[in-house]
């Protein structure tokens, strides 16, 4: 994996234009830089007017920020995409089978393929879910698989997001913006559509309704409220699906059903797409101080009266310590070899791994097992001596809290800068919808890009931006 040069998705390793970018390159050569600069500003104005903003945690409530958008599309060929899709499909099937197993008979532990303490002592494991059968057998209705690329054919899964993956509204709005700004580019390239996502999402959720529900299921999106950092996305998805956007205080349990307060009285809900963490879902069953949830919803859920998407307790499958077992998990449940590679991972809870990690700290990326959003992680090669020293102490005092991975040489895609095109590192989050009889993967996904030269951190909370992601038709 230690490559001497970085793989660029437009220019490869040796400055040879790659096929998916051919039509784009011809167009770009005929464009005037000043016009493109104006387009870049126009894109920002469009985003601001549409209100596609996120609230920054720990800042004044009024502060809403734009995630920077880069106008150069990231282009993937259909062949590359087909291959990726098969791997994603396999992985998502395995994740659902794994979740069913660990909340039922725990065969994987009995078979000795996963240590019992990985489950028993894991904070993300929800004992309340033991023996519960979610409607349709689906645990992860919506999944976001974070992928990175290091070469022509080398994709790695960096992270599975099986709780409440966010960012899909950017995938959709990025495409809308590109369609408005560069219609001619879409005439020259046959790009597979992403705009069916909201309809697919609604159909997929409806297909997971409790068995007792007849007719057209009532779906609603549960948001923590307008101060949540992803509120825009919650409202956007509810709006695009044509369903209600509810908060905890709009809901209560009425006659054994979860119901929303409408202008005509309480109306029951069949499927709740919740964007609220497990812990806040039900003050009677989980965190008693939560004001975001619905007292008693878990009792309705266990009785089969409502579908909660994603199911409570799915966090166990995207935990970073479990991640290191994903190759075994995929093989155990699908009986197939994993199609997508994992990044080699050292579990620092293991003494010999810890020793290796401490000895090679300046070359590794170290992450918190339960962390997300790029917080609390160390990137060895770019860390200062002091940061390395401080992190070493953290590792020694709580080794079980960390995993380490080699620093991957992430692929780059050009962004538009004042000086023209310049390569920047990217990752990719495709979105996957799971219903009892099908797994639907939207062609494309969210490309996050590190805007700083050489930076490997693509998180929007850390100065990353986004791009429209194209999967071409053949």
């Amino acid at each position, binding site marked *: 994996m230690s490559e001497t040069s970085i793989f660029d998705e437009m220019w490869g390793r040796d400055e040879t234009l790659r096929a998916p970018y051919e039509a784009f390159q011809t167009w770009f050569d005929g464009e005037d830089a000043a016009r493109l600069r104006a387009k870049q500003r126009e894109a920002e104005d469009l985003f601001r007017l549409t*209100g596609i903003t996120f609230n920054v945690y720990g800042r004044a409530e009024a502060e809403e920020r734009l995630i920077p958008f880069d106008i150069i599309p990231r282009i993937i060929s259909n062949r590359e995409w087909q291959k990726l899709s098969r791997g994603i499909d396999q992985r998502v099937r395995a994740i659902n089978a794994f979740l069913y197993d660990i909340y039922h008979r725990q065969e994987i532990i009995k078979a000795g393929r996963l240590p019992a303490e990985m489950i028993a002592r894991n904070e993300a494991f929800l004992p309340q879910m033991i023996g519960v059968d979610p409607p349709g057998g689906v645990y992860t209705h919506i999944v976001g698989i974070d992928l990175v690329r290091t070469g022509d054919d080398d994709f790695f899964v960096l992270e599975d997001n099986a709780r409440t993956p966010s960012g899909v509204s950017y995938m959709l709005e990025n495409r809308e913006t590109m369609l408005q700004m560069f219609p001619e580019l879409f005439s020259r390239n046959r790009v597979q559509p992403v705009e069916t996502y909201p309809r697919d999402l609604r159909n997929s959720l409806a297909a997971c309704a409790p068995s007792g529900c007849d007719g057209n299921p009532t779906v609603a999106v549960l948001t923590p409220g307008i101060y949540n950092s992803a509120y825009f996305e919650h409202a956007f998805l509810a709006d695009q699906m044509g369903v209600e956007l509810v908060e905890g*205080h709009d809901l209560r349990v009425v006659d054994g059903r979860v119901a929303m*307060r409408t*202008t005509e009285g309480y109306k029951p809900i069949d499927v709740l797409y919740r964007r609220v963490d497990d812990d806040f879902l039900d003050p009677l069953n989980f965190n008693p101080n939560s004001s975001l949830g619905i007292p008693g919803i878990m009792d309705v859920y266990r009785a089969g009266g409502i579908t909660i998407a994603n199911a409570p307790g799915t966090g166990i499958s995207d935990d970073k310590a479990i991640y290191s077992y994903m190759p075994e998990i995929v093989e155990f449940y699908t009986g197939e070899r994993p199609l997508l590679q994992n990044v080699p991972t050292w579990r620092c809870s293991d003494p010999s791994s810890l020793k290796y990690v401490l000895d090679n700290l300046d070359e590794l990326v170290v992450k918190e097992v339960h962390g997300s959003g790029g917080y609390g992680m160390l990137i060895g090669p770019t860390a200062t001596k002091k940061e390395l020293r401080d992190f070493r102490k953290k590792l020694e005092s709580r080794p079980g809290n960390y995993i380490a991975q080699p620093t991957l040489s992430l692929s780059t895609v050009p962004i538009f800068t004042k000086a023209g095109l310049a390569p920047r590192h990217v990752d990719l989050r495709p979105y996957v919808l799971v219903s009892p009889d099908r797994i639907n993967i939207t062609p494309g996904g969210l490309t996050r890009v590190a805007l700083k030269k050489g930076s490997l951190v693509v998180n929007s909370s850390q100065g990353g931006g986004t791009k429209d992601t194209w999967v071409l038709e053949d």
Partner: protein
Amino acid sequence: MLGKTANGLFWMYRYLERAENTSRLVETGQRIALTRLGSGDDDWLPVMQTAGVAEGYKATHDELTKDGAIDWMLRSKENGSSVLTSIAGARQNARMVRTALTHEVWEATNGCYMTAQEKLGRKVSERDLPSVLGMIRQRTALVRGTTHGTMLRNDMYDFARLGTFLERADNTARILDVKYYVLLPSALAVGSSIDNVQWETILRSVSAHGGFRMEYGNVYSPRDIAHFLILDKRFPRSLAFCASKLKDNLGYLASSYGKKTDACAMAEALIRRFMTHDIEAVFEFGLHEYIEEVLIALGQLGAQIEKDYRFYE
């Protein structure tokens, strides 16, 4: 439709209406200051009273100045009814009910807020005042226009309209409440220039000067003005017009929900009690007493709407 959404739409349009009304009052106040000889800072007190923000001003300021009053009404964050806080309130509610709005209405509202943030972010100089007020008025008009042009005529629209007309009726009634004495027949010093200014001020405060002139020419009489503002059903800011819109929209809700609420009956009663007499009867009853009772009835109607349609838990 969620009770919370009904509440959000109701308040979104109340705030929007309030922003327009307050900016109109600032404009009127400035006009008096510029056109009337001998006018001074004191003239801003009744202006703030008509906007219902005078008490807040007194509580936070030591002296009454023109600049202070304009700033308070336009952009103070401490004043919950300033133009800027009203627009921010409208936009906050719009975010909350985003799923009930069309794309066009949301963008117009967000654009209105962005303009207000930009133009009212810092003190507005006297030189810029007319253009800033004009811009705000245009932006709120755009929200109104997209609302009419793109929103479905369903229960959501009804709640938006209820908020609009309750706020508007309240605003017109408050102006009458503060200025009733210049409309009393006893104040008939016809032709005196002072009264002319007062009357014109009242008409401008509710954008009625053009409409009134169309109907009555240039002859101002307190009786005609009172009639126009209270009972004339052609004038879109008169109490009678607003009341009949409130009744209509509650009626639409009753028919789409198949249930007539107490609020609906209350709106009908309000019209029977207050809007079916002629202006002479109002004067006989006592203009001030009449207005006070209308204000109370409007307040009760608002509270009943909240309750009947489950705005809160």
